[in-house]
């Protein structure tokens, strides 16, 4: 449980981190909260030769309102998301989910940016950002770009981030009173979800952030994934139960010691139904 040897560099700014990434190429990895990366390194499943520590970039830790959106700095810890009054008011789904990530120790170290950049289908926050219809602000040598959440998760633990890019901000639309739910099914309180569901139900056409439902699933595919068949069924007027029957449509959920794919499909249907019922019409 000791990582292979590596060099350690501490970046004083996002720009310096980008420069260090450019300099060191594929061998380098950004270190944020370290709660996904370091376990992999200790198991020697990840062996970056250079770690670029961005965990102290205080200017990337913030939560602020920006028009219709809430902007969250990539280095904001799960705990800060969990207790944010602004988020509790404007996007309560996000703190509710952040409060269920791991245990308090993990929530005080892990960052929202790390959670999203890691692209783990079993993580909670990617599904939440997908369901909300959020986007990622990333910065590279060529400047800044914004990637919608729907285009961000490219494959198993792969994202649209280029090797020399840093995720700087996560943007989510205000919920404006829309119903929401986060359902996490696990065996122990601090475990990853066996299956999870993030759901948002807006009244048709209400408010600046549009109408319709956003439903996304945790641990049901090789990436965090939207339950598009459920969303479509709802748009077509289906009830919660009818729509939930489509929760696993077209998905190929993983198999592990906690659940067979068949059980995961079933759980997704149960949890989506419960989420839609809780989120209301």
């Amino acid at each position: 449980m000791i990582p292979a040897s590596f060099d350690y560099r501490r970046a004083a700014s996002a720009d310096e981190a980008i420069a260090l990434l450019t300099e060191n190429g594929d061998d380098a990895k950004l270190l944020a909260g370290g709660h996904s990366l370091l376990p992999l390194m200790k198991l020697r499943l990840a062996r970056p030769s250079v770690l670029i520590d961005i965990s102290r970039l205080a200017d990337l830790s913030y939560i602020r309102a920006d028009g219709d959106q809430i902007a969250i700095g990539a280095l904001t810890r799960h705990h800060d998301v969990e207790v944010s009054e602004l988020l509790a008011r404007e996007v309560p789904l996000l703190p509710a989910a952040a409060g269920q990530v791991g245990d308090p120790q993990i929530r005080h170290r892990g960052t929202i940016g790390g959670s999203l950049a890691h692209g783990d289908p079993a993580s909670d926050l990617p599904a939440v950002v997908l369901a909300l219809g959020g986007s990622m602000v990333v910065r590279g040598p060529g400047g800044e770009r914004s990637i919608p959440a729907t285009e961000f998760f490219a494959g198993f633990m792969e994202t649209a981030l280029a090797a020399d890019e840093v995720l700087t901000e996560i943007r989510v639309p205000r919920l404006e009173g829309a119903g929401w739910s986060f359902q996490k099914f696990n065996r122990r309180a601090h475990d990853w979800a066996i299956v999870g569901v993030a759901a948002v139900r807006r009244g048709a056409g209400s408010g600046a952030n549009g109408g319709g439902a956003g439903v996304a699933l945790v641990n049901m595919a090789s990436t965090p994934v939207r339950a598009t068949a459920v969303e479509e069924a709802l748009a077509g007027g289906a009830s919660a139960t009818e729509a939930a029957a489509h929760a696993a449509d077209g998905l190929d959920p993983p198999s592990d010691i906690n659940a067979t794919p068949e059980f995961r499909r079933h759980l997704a249907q149960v949890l989506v139904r419960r989420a839609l019922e809780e989120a209301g019409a």
Partner: protein
Amino acid sequence: MTAVVGTRMLRKEDPELLTGEARYVDDLVIPGALHLAIVRSTYAHATIKSVDVSAALAQPGVVAAFSGADLRPEWAGPMPCAWPVTEDMLNPEHFPIAVHTACYVGDAVAVVVAETDVAARDAAELVEVDFDVLPAVVDLEDALSDRVLVHEALGTNRSYTWELIPDADAVEEAFANASHTVVERYVQQRLIPSAMETRGVVAVPAVYGGEITLYTSTQIPHILRVLAALTVGVSESKLRVVAPSVGGGFGSKLDVYAEELLCLALARRLRRPVRWSEDRMENTQATIQGRGMIQHMELAADADGRVTAVRARLLADMGAYLQLVTPGIPLLGAFLYGGVYDIPAYSFVCTGVFTTKTPTDAYRGAGRPEATYALERAMDALARQVGVDPAEIRRRNFIHPDQFPYSSSGGLIFDSGNYEPALARAMEMAGYDQVRSDQAARRSAGATKHLGIGLSSYVEMCGLAPSRVLSALRYVAGGWESSTVRFLPTGKVQVVTGTTPHGQGHETSWSMIVADQLGVSPDDVEVLHSDTSIAPHGMDTYGSRSLSVGGTALWLATEKVIDKAKLIAAHQLEVAAEDLDYAGGTFTVKGSPDRTMAIGAVAFEAFTAHNLPDGLEPNLEASSHWDPPNFTFPFGTHICVVEVDEETGKVDVLKYVAVDDCGTQINPLIIEGQVHGGIVQGAAQALFEEAIYDEDGNLVTSSLADYLVPSAADFPSMQTDTTVTPSPTNPMGVKGVGEAGTIAAAPAVMNAIIDALSPFGITDIDMPATPQRIWTAIKQSTDASGASGASGAGASGASGANGASGAGANGGPR
């Protein structure tokens, strides 16, 4: 001094533990120590064709690297097994590091010694082992078929068959005449003990005198000293074993481990201290595992449900080799398949089987949780057959209080017991009748969250052990314990005990006992232990033995101190010894309450020796070696209330009630602590924990992300109470409580789950009762029975997720 025994005195050990002052093996600063890293087999079964350590040796900081063949001359004998349970038991020879064949994933195949831990681990990755892979055998019944042999030379995977059948005809007759028979098959999954502190070892050669000190995270420094000396071939007198602070053991540190012997041999060979510390993944593979059994359990009963005979047949998983007491573990439960019930005919047979997995050995409860589980599950099955409430079936069968001492049909004499009050109290605390009516209400309302209530009445045998009984069981050592009590000139008291606490609070309890006997403050009693140079005689700590055996030795030694003090006090007060009364640390002349002498003052007289009776030796010090005449038999009833979500298969424990009787109580606070931890550990077997192997013999659950040890968030606050039925086996009347919770909890939880699922006709779920298993069982039952719902189809086939191949599609650890 007011008496402290029976009070909730805070533990003396805790300030040091809580402030981080306690020193575990890995905290010991030992200048110049080399670090050992172990290359382990990545195959469950493989011939070692060659081992090439040259690349490792070439690394900076590496001092030495060896294969098993290189180190073979270091061993004066093979790894010890102290419990050859039958005359013809097969015990394959094995050494701390495999020489020809690796027999489980984690078996040591090469070692690297370097100046730093990191250098040793990095170099270990460079050792090249050429394996010829052999087939693995993982499943117990498959192993019994001898399709694949773990040890070719033995010609079979069967290590032994051990029987306890006092009267075979009586058993046959009872089954032939039975109105009800229960025939069940239960699986005890393997468990990983998961002590919070993984193991650690340092062997330190003395700079002068040729002694080696072995600091190790062990429960058994005394036993280890003897057996390590024999295995490594050093004189016992040149080996000192010290267990510093030990962060939990649960039986897993009741062993003689390869790494202890390797550090000793390498320190001797390299003439430098050698240390090793286990990482968590190694701990899951290289430290023994617990349980691992298939139990065939049968009850015969009359029309009223009175049990007339029990017949238990076990297959017990030894793993790849026999460790210290591996084959004996099922035997510690062998006498308890009749439990708290008055059952006239008894039959127990156990067959030990080798598999290509980590060896098994003692794990909290060791044999007794397994026995209690099989019996308490079967009693519920009987209650269902007879059509009475589980509480009623138990009441009908309890041994009555006037039957004690009770000669069980298994051949033991239960010292004392009174089972019904514990059951009644537990039912009252659980609100049993209310839960039953809530359950019925939910069922008739068609709720999808089902209530279940589970009972578990248990008796265990503690206080290992009368040496003659151990001899009859072919255990190679005795079961006595020793203690020395000495007054220091200042009136402080030093206690030396042969027990080896590793979390149980002996320093506190032992101080309380002596404090009351000698009329001193418990703060003035110092308890020395866990160092073979300070406490040369001891049989250590396991099997809830320490208080009833070690505490009794202590009590007797203290009585001897008082007896000697009395002679000195009589001399000083110029009366005959018979004319003195003794109470609370003071001698008083009978009839003259003003003529007194405190025992502390006597101690000072004994020290100065200025004025002692003729022929009496100076100093107040005495030792006692106590060999108990019998085991002790703690008992109780636990009740668990669960809610099972039919849609997801998730179990929520709503309530847990425990009423335990461990005889006289020294410190109720410590008792509660032992019970709390024990309950959650037992419930963990029912709900969370399972060492899962794939068909190639790889341990899939080799990290704490996959091996689910519950936390405080996963279990409700427990309600505990006690009854007190003193043991006549020892002068204090104590029984032992270290394992009670673990023994009672798993069947209470599983009976509750089965009870909740009874509307589906489900009568069995394998442990742990995962959401997947419960959902599968419900699905099979509803698919199969349509409307009837009462098919009774067991669902034990509802194993975990398919293939148990762990990593599965989306990769391994996160």
